[in-house]
């Protein structure tokens, strides 16, 4: 079943697709597009039920006029007088784990002037339903008609034939999703002139300096726990950027002390936020913990593995595949390394976001230059793991969604 979600008034997605194909690209950062995005931001912020949701609040914040102006500045700065224009039509496949991604992908592409087709899954959260309603309302306004003619949001599940039709007419195909769905979608042929950007499953980790934690004040520890909880629990630990491995850097004894300082604060934060999952999630975590142990990936399981914070200790010789043991809901692998220099040894190409606490900027820069091939695309302070950036998985999305005209 194919549902045309937006624009609301158009009955037939084929007609709307034709309008997209026939539309000329808009210039990058067209004032009307900036105004539209700002209007979406305002309508979210004015809805108290929506702006209370942390995910929607950060989306709305990202869409504000001021922030878009920053994006334009850095876009122009990176171009340094070169000429970059829209590629044409971009086809986006939204992931099912983080609902807001489709919006970033769509709006960034819209900002550089493309027409956009967004494919959503039939299963969507309530927040996204409300968000789409607001966007639909704005698209219906006559002044935003140029955007309306360049936008098509479809919801369908596994109809490969429609994916193929869309892939034949787009200039860029953007795939966000799990490895399986990315693999399936990549097998579907596309326009020979088109290009593809893929964002498959990734793994993320947090890294803390044990002695910094050991000497941190109570209030600093509380703040840090709050930021760590944002990174880990906003999307039930299902976001690619949410940490699933916590690496302690320091002497063994200091690491043990730091853990006893850190985790009770995380527990307390979870209690305060009243985060509680259905009972079966605890059982999922118990099963994942025991499977990890059974496979030799984990050598110790902390008491209460069914609780909201479950901790398992990574075996010395765990294979990189422990990253596939995934269940979400707050299951953390833990490891200790004596020195930051040892970190590259435990990294793998699946690793995306490294969030950190207690390191100096120079140390982090040095680490960035010693990373193994492909591993780690973002290094950010704990608390910013989920902050969306236009640089994602090593790609500058604004540049990826535009093409450069070679002018001599």
């Amino acid at each position, binding site marked *: 079943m194919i549902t045309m979600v937006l624009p609301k008034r158009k009955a037939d997605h084929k007609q709307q697709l034709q309008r997209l194909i026939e539309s000329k690209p808009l210039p990058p950062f067209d004032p009307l597009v900036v105004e539209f995005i700002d209007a979406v931001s305002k309508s979210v912020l004015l809805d108290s039920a929506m702006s209370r949701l*942390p995910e*929607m609040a950060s989306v709305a914040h990202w869409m504000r006029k001021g922030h878009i102006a920053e994006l334009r500045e850095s876009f122009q700065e990176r171009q340094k007088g070169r000429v970059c224009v829209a590629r044409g039509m971009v086809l986006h496949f939204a992931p099912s784990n*983080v609902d807001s991604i489709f919006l970033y992908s769509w709006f960034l592409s819209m900002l550089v002037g493309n027409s956009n087709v967004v494919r959503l899954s039939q299963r969507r*959260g309530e927040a996204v339903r409300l968000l789409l309603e607001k966007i639909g309302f704005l698209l219906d306004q006559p002044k935003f008609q140029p955007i309306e003619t360049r936008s098509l949001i479809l919801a369908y599940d596994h109809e490969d034939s429609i994916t193929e039709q869309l892939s034949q007419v787009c200039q860029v195909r953007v795939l966000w999703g799990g490895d399986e769905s990315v693999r399936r979608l990549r097998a579907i042929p596309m326009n020979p002139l088109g290009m593809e950007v893929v964002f498959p499953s990734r793994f993320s980790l947090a890294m803390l300096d044990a002695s910094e934690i050991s000497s941190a004040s109570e209030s600093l520890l509380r703040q840090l726990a709050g930021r760590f909880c944002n990174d880990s629990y906003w999307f039930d630990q299902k976001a690619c950027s949410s940490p699933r491995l916590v690496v302690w850097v320091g002497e063994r004894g200091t690491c043990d002390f730091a853990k006893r300082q850190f985790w009770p604060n995380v527990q307390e934060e979870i209690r305060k936020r009243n985060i509680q999952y259905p*009972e079966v999630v605890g059982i999922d975590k118990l099963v994942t913990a*025991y499977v990890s142990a*059974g496979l030799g990936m984990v050598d*110790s399981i902390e008491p209460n593995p069914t*609780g909201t914070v479950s901790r398992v200790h990574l075996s010395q010789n765990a294979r990189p595949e422990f990253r596939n043991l995934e269940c979400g809901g707050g299951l953390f692998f833990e490891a200790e390394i004596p020195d930051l220099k040892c970190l590259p040894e435990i990294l793998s190409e699946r690793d995306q976001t490294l969030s950190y606490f207690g390191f100096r900027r120079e140390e982090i820069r040095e680490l960035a230059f010693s990373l193994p091939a492909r591993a780690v695309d973002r290094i950010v302070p704990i608390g910013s793991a989920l902050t969306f950036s236009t640089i994602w998985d090593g790609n500058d999305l604004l540049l990826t969604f535009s093409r450069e005209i070679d002018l001599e």
Partner: protein
Amino acid sequence: MSAELTAALVREDPYAEDCAEKATRLLAEMNALTSFHAERCLPYLRILSAAFHAKTQFDCLADLPFIPVRLFKELELRSQPQELIVKTLTSSGTTGQRPSRIFLDKSTASAQVHALVRIVRSFLGIKRLPMLILDHPGVVKGQNTFSARGAGILGFSQFGADHTYALLSDTLHPDWEAIGSFLDRHRRERILLFGFTFILWQHLLLVAEQDGRKLDFGDSILIHGGGWKKLEESKVSNTEFKQRLRHTLGIRSIHNYYGMVEQTGSIFMECEEGYFHPSDYSEVIVRDPRSLEVRTMGAPGLIESMSTIPMSYPGHVLLTEDLGIIQGPDGCRCGRRGTFFTVLGRLPTAELRGCSDTYQVPS
């Protein structure tokens, strides 16, 4: 192990021990099994090391190292070398999930038979009864691997004679002719009916009701199992189930059993009062689904099922995902001693999708 097993087999009634007696005997057997599997099954030993400080001896049944039953879908758990495995049982498994794989060696397979015989004989008596299988013959095809349904039918076939299938293989439609001639052959005899709860409901009872057929199975005893999940979805209670079977098919005595492919043999039979009873081979406790602490009598929780049977795989202490209530230690009005309990159904499933609006209460 075998001396104890023999001793248990000598006693006729598998429900004669009271809770206190049984706890002592069972604890020794369970501790022996834990050591046995820890020595022979590396993944199991790793789990004991990671979660139970590698301990194998415990002071009470509640402390025993339970493993989640779902582990048999995720790991290959075997305590005997592959060449000694004579049979592999698989669970049907819900869609998208891998099935459980249960590896049986000769002695575990025969211990399953012994246990089942003693338990079921205490309900049926020693004489083989004419047996009508409320399923189709296609389920038992297959050489060394069996579905839980096939294994159940084969296991119970030993209590019957003149085995007759009540459903047609290709359509699953009732074979009214075969049923009729079976009943003609065994007028005034006690007959055994066996089937899977949902299959016999869907493909026999509902069809008979729709066709307006009424049968009289006479002096009959029905034993059925396989779970209530699908009936629960159609909101059919055990009482209603029994009433309608009695009304349309004239079945006099109906016993559900609760069991799992991971502990084949040591099944829990439903008594005349409607309660499940652990036998000499098994025990249950109930745990809080969140904390996994043992819950007291009368409080619902996850069923942990113990069995003395598994020797070729570490399945002697399993945490199920079924909810149940311990109704009492000893003292069931049916006369059987020991723990008795009820099963409420599966722990509700839920999938984390990652939307922050699903579970978090905004601060």
